[in-house]
Every structure is written in C-alpha cells, then in structure tokens.
C-alpha cells in the first residue's frame, strides 16, 4: 500500500530525515514511534504530499507521490490519503456535521447523499447528538472523533494520524486509538499513526521506530 524508499529531508543544516525506507501493507495499522523532534511529522508530511523530500520516493497505492504536481497531490489527499492532526484540524466556524461533510463537498457529493454519509460517520464515532455543535463547544476527545469521522468521509485508503492523542488525556487518548483501530478493521483502511505513547503502540499491527531522522526499527 505504502512504500517509502530512501527519503531524506533537510531544513537548512538540520537533517530531519535520512535515507528512510519502509513498506506498509494494506489494511494494517502502523505506529510511527519516536521522541519529539525525531522526524515523525516531517515523514508523515512527505508521505501525505504536504512536503517534498530532498531525495527518495514515496509510493501510495502504486502512485509515486514525490513526482506529483500540486493538483496531483491535492487529488491524492482528497481520494487516497486522509489526515488526522494532533490539534484536530477542525474548521472552527463549522459544526461537527459540516466539518465531517467538508471532504464530501470537495468531492461534490449531492447534499442529500452528503447528509446521509455524515450521519453515518457521526454515528460511527458516537457523536450523532453533537452534530450541530462547533469545535469550540466540544471536548478534545469529541473534537478528535469528529476529525476521525472527517478523515473517513472521503473513503481514504491511507489514514495518516499525527499524534492524534497528543492533546488528550490518557483515557480519552486510548478511546480515540481504539476508534482508529476499529475503523481500520471495519473500513479496511491502512493507518499510519505517529505516537510516542507505548500504550498506543500495543494497538498497532506494527511499529516503525524513528530516531534522529533514521528508521531504527521497522
């Protein structure tokens, strides 16, 4: 599903990634583990096409990400890859339902179909009763659930979650990870989740450990 091959990325004199290579099979949940500053987010951004590597290639579902132009990357993020951010990444002025429906609007789904799909996804993450609430009116856990629902709305094949529990307390974090684990199993998506919480690693099918921009365990 995902192949990262010899990826390197520097920011000035700082080498964020050095010759990173690994594969992820479809339908698996991989935990990307490392300390702060180890290069997790940079790697996820390169995989998601938000950043370009200095060297190396990233292939998602057979598509060479690093050679895609701006439109190709946008299409990739709409159709293949979804992000879940540590800070949830919800649009503050939209309700939970509208946030979940945003990717469906990008796909120009008919309003009726969109509402049906949003309702299903909110039900999946247990937030049906909070559909009209805005992010500021919800707890961190609820916001991250909305973010997960939104990430799933576009029916992605690869779910990239960057420290999805970083802003949550341990119990909420566990429930969110369990939810991600659940949707991987129920929706059949591949998930690449960065974390430095050992508890979260237990839920992953596989752990890729990164240190100082290098893969130390794969």
């Amino acid at each position, binding site marked *: 599903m995902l192949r990262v091959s010899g990826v390197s990325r520097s920011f000035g004199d700082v080498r964020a990634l050095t010759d990173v290579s690994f594969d992820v099979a479809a339908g698996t949940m991989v935990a990307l583990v490392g300390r702060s500053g180890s290069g*997790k*987010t*940079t790697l996820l*951004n390169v995989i*998601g096409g*938000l*950043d370009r590597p200095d060297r190396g290639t990233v292939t998602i579902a057979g598509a060479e990400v690093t050679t895609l132009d*701006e*439109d190709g990357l*946008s*299409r*990739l*993020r*709409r*159709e293949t890859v979804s*992000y879940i*951010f*540590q*800070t949830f*990444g919800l*649009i*503050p*002025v*939209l309700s939970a339902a*509208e946030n979940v429906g*945003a*990717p469906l*609007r*990008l796909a*120009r*789904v*008919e*309003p009726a179909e*969109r509402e049906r799909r949003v309702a299903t996804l909110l039900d999946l993450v247990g937030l049906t009763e909070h559909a009209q609430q805005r992010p500021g009116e919800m707890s961190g856990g609820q916001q991250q659930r909305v973010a997960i629902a*939104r990430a799933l709305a*576009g029916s992605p094949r690869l779910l990239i979650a*960057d*420290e999805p529990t*970083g802003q949550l307390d341990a119990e909420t974090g566990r429930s969110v990870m369990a939810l991600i684990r659940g949707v991987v199993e129920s929706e059949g998506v591949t998930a690449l989740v*960065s974390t430095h919480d050992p508890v979260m690693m237990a839920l992953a099918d596989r752990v890729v450990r990164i240190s100082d921009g290098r893969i130390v365990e794969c």
Partner: protein
Amino acid sequence: MLRLVLRRGRAQWPLLASLLAVVTVGTTLLGVCALLMSRTAGQAVSVAAARAPVTDLDATAYSSDIAAEDAPAVVADTRTLLTSAMQPFRSTLSARAASDMSDISGRSGKGYLAAVDGLPSRATLVDGAWPQGAGETLLLEPTATRLRLSPGDHVRVGDADLTVTGIATADAGTGWDRDLLEGAGYDPDYSDIDSLRHFPAYGPFLISLDDLLARHVGLTRLEITAQPDLTVSTQRDLDTVTDGVLAADRRYSGVLGDRAHFTRVASTLPHVLLTAKSQQRVTDGAVLAVAVIGIVLTGTALALAGRLTAGVRAAETDLLTALGTSRLQLLRTAAIEAVALALLAAALALPLSSLLHAALSHVAPLADAGLSNTPAVTKLQVLSVVLGALALTVVLLTPFSAQSRARVGIDLLLAVFAAAGWWQLRAVTGSADLLQVLAPALLLTAGATLSLRLIPPGLALADRLAQRSRALPVPLAMFEAARRPRATAAGLLLCLACAAATFGAAFDATWARSQRDQAALTVGTDIAVTTSALDRSGPSGSAVSEATGGVVSPVVNRGIPVGQWLGGSGAAPRLVAVDMTRASSLLRGRLDGGRTWSSVATGLIPARPATGIEIPADATITLTAATTVSIPAPIIVTPHLLLQDAAGRRTPCVAPPMALDGRSRPLTGCGGGSLIAISLPFTFDGYAETSAPFTVTMTVTGSADWSVTSAEPVPGQLTDPALTTAGGKLVMTGQIRLGGPPEAARTLVATTFADPGVLPVAVSTALADGLGVAPGSQLTIAVGTTTLPVRIAAVVPGVPSAPGAAALLADVDMLSRALAVRGDFATPVDGWWIGEPTRPDAAGRLAALHLGTVTTRAAETSRLAAGPLRAGLPAALHLLIPAAVLLLLAGVVLHVTYDLRTRRTETSRLRGMGLTRREIRTTLLAQHAVALLPLLAMGAAVGALATRLLTPLLVRSDTGAVPVPGVVPLWPWPTESTLLAFLLVAVAGLLATVVLLQTARSTAAPLRELS
C-alpha cells in the same frame, strides 16, 4: 522598559511601520488643513485685496465750501491725512475740485472751473488737445456746443482768462456723477443752493489743480482720492490700513476744523477687507470640518491597527503578565512607544504636509486663485501636527477589550447625537460654527457604525444559501464570513472611509453647483450692464447686440414701493423687468419644481409684440393742434411720441409745447424707430365750466391698430378720445374739460397695442411671504410717479439679479405698455441684459462701449467658486478624498494580512484536506470580498445620505448666510461611479495580492509546528 520597547521595535518593525504610516497620513492631512487655514487663508485675504477693484479699496475725502485763502492748505492737509491713513501702503492720490459759479464773460449764464486728475482716463477727446499749462482749459462737448466754443477760442470765467485747448465727452462710470452738472456740461435751470437762484449753468471749465489753486478761487467741492497699492501685503498690514481708514473720517473733521463746511472720508476699504476676512472664516470653518473627518478616519484606522497590534502581541502580553509585569508597567511601555510613534509621525508629517500643501497650491483650485506657495512651516501647522499625532496615538493605548465593550450601543448613541446635531443645524439659519465643523464627521461616523448592523443579516442569508451548495470553497468562504467574529474596526474604517470619500466628492460638486446657482441668480443673466443716468443716452440696444452677438434686452431693475410696503430690513422691493419672450435665453437662476423661466414667462408676456409705424431717421413730422372754441387762456399740448428700436428699447420723443391755434409745426429728431404710442397731455392755466373739442394732426404715413384712451388718474377730464387716419395723417380728437383742478391731467393716449390692464408679475418667495400674497393676488406698485396695478401670476424662489430679496419680475414690454397707457412714456431703463453671447470677449467689448458697469455670470461664478477666499474648501475636499482612499486601502491591507497570518495553520489544514492552492485562494478571496465589498456599498449609501441631509445645511454663501437659491444636494454620478469603481478594483486587487502572497507562502510548516 525602554530596552523592551527598542527590542520589540526591531522585531516588529513592519507592524510599527504600518502604525507610523497611518498616523503620518492623518497628521499630514491635519497639517495641510492647518496650512490652508493659516498660510493660505492669510494669503487669500491679501490676494483678494490685491484683486479687488481699485474703486473698492480707495478712500475719498470730501469737503465743501472752502474759502479761497484756505484752499491750498486744505488740499495739502487732505493729502497728508489720506496718505497717513493708507499706511503702511503706498498710495496714489488724485483730486477733483470745482470752484464756485462765476459769470462767463459775454454770456447770460454762469460757469465754474474744475480740476480733474487723470482726465484722459475719464473723458474721450473729440477735438483739440488736453490742457497742459496754466490758463488752458478743456470743455465737455455740450458746454462747447452751447457756448459755441472751439479749440483756440478764449473765454473768461470769473477772473480767469482761459484758452480752450480741447473738447471731450465724459466717459461713463468715471466719477462725472459727482460733477456739479453731473457731466452734462449744461443745465438750463441750475439751482444754486447758496443764492437760491436759478440760472443756466455751463461747465466744467477743466484746468489743472495747481492752476485752480493758484487762481485763489473758493472751492464748492473738493474730493481727493487715495488708492493704496495692495499688491503685496500681510494680514497685519491689512489690519493696520483698515484701522487707519476707519479713523480717517473723524480725524479729517478735526484736521480741517471750520475751514470747510462739510467734511467726510468715505471708503469701502474697511468693509471690503473685513468682509474678506469674514468670508475666509467661513471657508476656514468648512476646511476644519474636513480636517475633523480626516482625524476621525485616522482614529478609526489606528483603532484597527491597535487591535491588530494587540492581537499580534497577545501572547507576549500574557507572558509579561505571567512574569509579573503590572498593568501600569504595560501601560507605561505602550505610552513610551506611542509617544515615540507620535513624535516620529509628527517629524515626518511636518515636511510632508508642507510639501503637499505647496504641491496642492500649484494645481487648481488654489493655483487658479493665485494662491501658489513654496513649502513653509507655520506655528498652527506645527501645533496641529504634534498635538494631532499625540492625540491619535492615544487610541493605541486603549486596550481592544475596552474598545469592544465601548462599542456596545455606541453606534446608537452616535446616531442620537448625530440626529440631535442635524436637527439643531436645521434650526440655525446663520452660521453655526461648532455644529458645522462637527456635524459631517458625526453623521458619517454614526451612519457607518449603524450600517455595520446591516452586514450580519446579509451574511446570514449567504450562509443559508451556501449550506445548500455541493461545493466547498465558496460555501466555506460564506461560512467563514458569516460566522467569524466581526472585524468591527476594519468594517468601520472601510465604511467610514468610503462614506467620507463619496461625501467629499458630492459635497464638492454640491458646493460648486450652489456657487454657480448663486452666481447665476445674483447676476440674473449671462452679462448684465448697469447704466447710470449719464449712460442712458449712450449706445442703443443694437450696439449692445453688435458687441456681444447675444440675445439683448433692456432691463428695468430698481427699488419700488409695493403699495405702502417699502420692504423689510431697509431694502426696497425690487422690480426687474426684461424681455420675457426670450426668458430662456436671458434669465439665469435655478427654479424649483422643474419649472423653467420660459414656463414662468408664459403668464407674463403680451399676446403679440407691439408693432407700430416706422418713422425714418431723418423724417420731419408736422404737427397741428386746433380747437373750435374761444377760451380766455390758451390750451397747450405737448405731444409725446414713443418710439421703439429694433432691440426693443423704447425712447420717448417730446415735441415742444404748442398752443391749439391751428398752426402747423415741424418736428425733427423723432425718427429712427417705430412709433407705437402717442401721448397728448393738455394743460390749461385757467378755469371754465365748459369743454373744448380739439383736433391734433400728425403727418405720419402708415397704418396701425390704434387704441385710444384718456389717461389716469382723472380720465373724466378728457372725453371722447379718438384717433383716425386719413391721407397720411393721424388725426386725434376729443373733448377737454376745462373745469376741475388745474393740475388734473387731461391726456389722450393712443397706442398701437391694447391696454394690458393689470400687469402680470412673478414675485419672489420673500415678497410673497413678506406680504402674505399668493398667485392671483393683486397689488399696486409705483414706477416713478406712475401707479400700476399688478397681479401675481407666479411665485418663484428668487428673481434674477435679486437673490433673497422681495422682488417682482415682469415683462419689460408689458411694463412699458402699462406705463404708456397711463401717459408715462419715460419707460425706465436701468441697463441691458445679454443672454447667450456669441462674440469672444463680449464683456470686454461691452465695457469698451462705456455703457456702465459690466457684470458677467462667468466672473461671478469664478469669484464665488474659485476666488482666493473660497478656494480653500475645494482644495481641502480634494485632499480628503485621496486621504480617505489611502486609509481605506491601508485598512484593507492591514486587516487581510493580519487575518491571513493568524489563519496560517487553518490554511495548511485546508491543504491537508485536499484543497488546492487555487481553491484556498478562492475561499479566502470570496470570504473577504463578501465581508468587505458590501461595506463599500454601505459607505457610499452613508455618503449619499450625508450629502442629502448635510449639504443643504453646510453649504454657505460667501458671507456665511444661507445661499439663495437653496442648495440642492448633488450626487455626481460620473465622479462617484469612478470613485467607487476605483475602490472596488483597488480593494479587490489588494485582496487578491495579499491572498496570493499569503497562499503562495503557505507550507506544511504550521502543521509541523503544532505537532
């Protein structure tokens, strides 16, 4: 603290630079306004003084009945007094003096010597040469004709032996009305006040003043005029000369003592200069109002900048507070920064405002008004800039949270204040300085703040519509625009700046139009010539027509009593009569209700023009008068003929009195026109209880439809009036009643037109209000000694040439007919009006005819709209518009830049969701466009409302009074459309630029930072 301020200044220099720019723009505007009110204002009064007609600025000392032995000293003392009164200016003196009446050797009448300085500029030499030395004299043509004197002849007046060197005609408007014989050269029945005798008088015998004084003759009149040279002056100099001239009259009587019977120093100089200062104060008030708008705009821009600064520094402030920095310390830091900013802005604004003012003075309207300047600094400018900068930066010290709290309900409070101010302004008819200064800014601000309340409902509607859409970028923009907290300061700045700019443009247009309207109504026509008594024998209407190529009409324009009413406030009601059949070409001045002067004229003009019998210029008419009865005293008839020339001017021609003795008498000099009326006033110096039939024949060839009547006021004194034509003669018959009071009129009047009956007139609103009359009412007016009934056909806001006055407008033909049927052929003509002149320099050609004072609508418009005392306001308005536009655009850039910077992460997330940069740009552009562009429309609406409500109350005449005709608010669509289109394009362009720049920089970095 200082170190913190310096470090922060280095780190946040772009932000501080934007604050500095905003304060600099505002204080520069303030500085220019201060220069307009100080340097330009002072210069304007000087230029106005320098440009004023010399006769408005001179001072003339009059004295009379000066003994021969005192004359030289009196002349010297008068010259000294006038010279000192005109200090510190140099002045040019000219004298006019006339001696007592003396016998003319070998003649039955008397004559007088006179000295007139600058004779060649006051008379036109027709024969001989100007007198050069002692004993040489110049005569006016009538004097020379009557005395049969020619150049080279000798004449003795009193003890003076004189040689005639030249003969001249007196030029109109050059002071001959103050001559003993008013420049007529001859008076067959001169009334000498001293001797109470009547005798024929001739003169003046013009000699030099030195010659006059050397001959030791008493002076009947002495006048010496001083003309100051005001080409270069300061305000202090003008104040000094004003005081000097005001005191001169009192000083003059003290200086001359009992050496003169009458003394007086007359001058309009103090009035002219004080009026100029008063007019400049009116302009200064308006300029100040513009400055206040600029200050409010700058304050609003600073409030926005302050809010953005607070936002940028929120984290820093929180950190400082957490580290234990007190609010007082924070305030002190902010104060240091604000004062530094204010001083820096002032340092920039001072030279900038000087340069801008100098540049502004080199373009219209200041350059046209002669107010060009080099860059300079004035005290008022320094004070305004420094205090303004300090006051403006206080806005930065106000925490945004406090602003937000204060905003709740402040718009309503402002609206209440604005409404109260507007109501108060409406109630004030004169100048209301403070209200007029504050009202525009108050109303614009209230309107802008209130209009912000209209934005949310509109955006909510856009939000609802967006929810039904399938797409994301534009609906997301609507959601963002509708649901984000309002950017109040930015919205207020945009709306207020747009309102100020559009109001400024409309105020400028309304003001200029009002000045044009005032000029048009003041002059009444395109070119007006006002003639004096001396001028009325000058060139005819055909000469006027030839000189101008326009539509020409004789005009009656004089004060008259209306019944027993002599008018209010010392001004008699005016009668203006012109050729109303050509009203659309002749009359100027705006009417109300879509009426035109042609429509007003419809009810005033005769059904058909008066036509008569053409009398050739060289025709000799034979008159014969006879009666069939024998009476003890002779009956005398003095035939009057009324002739009309091609231009419509009517001139009476009077035959010598003749007895009803059956003898034929030739009459010459009554040709060259069309005979339209004959008046036969009979006098009978006796009493008899009988009637005398009479027959008066006149050899006039031609036919006309004659109407015959016995004239008022006692028509019964002449009965059976009739006129028949037979064999190339007009035969007029009737019966004269010889009884009754001897002074009762016995007048037959024959006219080629029917009796017009009650004269239809249009009256001004002032007259209608003053007398409480309305259309259909009848009044009585007196023209000369003839009483006329008039009927009000229409009420107009103002009668041309009589703005704001109680006045009547009539057709000059109808007036002439009404007077003629009453036996009054002396149709008064006070001047000429010329409409639509086609000849280049028509006014100059007219002036060359020496008909009288020439006034043009164009010159009056120029004086009112672009004169030095008025040019400051349009200049300030021309400055306000770009300043408002500049602050508006600066506000847009500040607001959008800040907004996009604070939403960098959100932009990155949108990219993470799969939005392309183009879609993100669309979202951001649409969001800001939908939030900001309606504010331009709102601002324009507020500007239009302010124009509608305020301009009629703010536009004033040059004297500060309410203009006549009233002000009609003008919304100059081309200008406003261009301005709004520019703002629309500029705002859209800036939005696009900022969004493009920001989105181009958009990277995943924020995601990494947050992670």
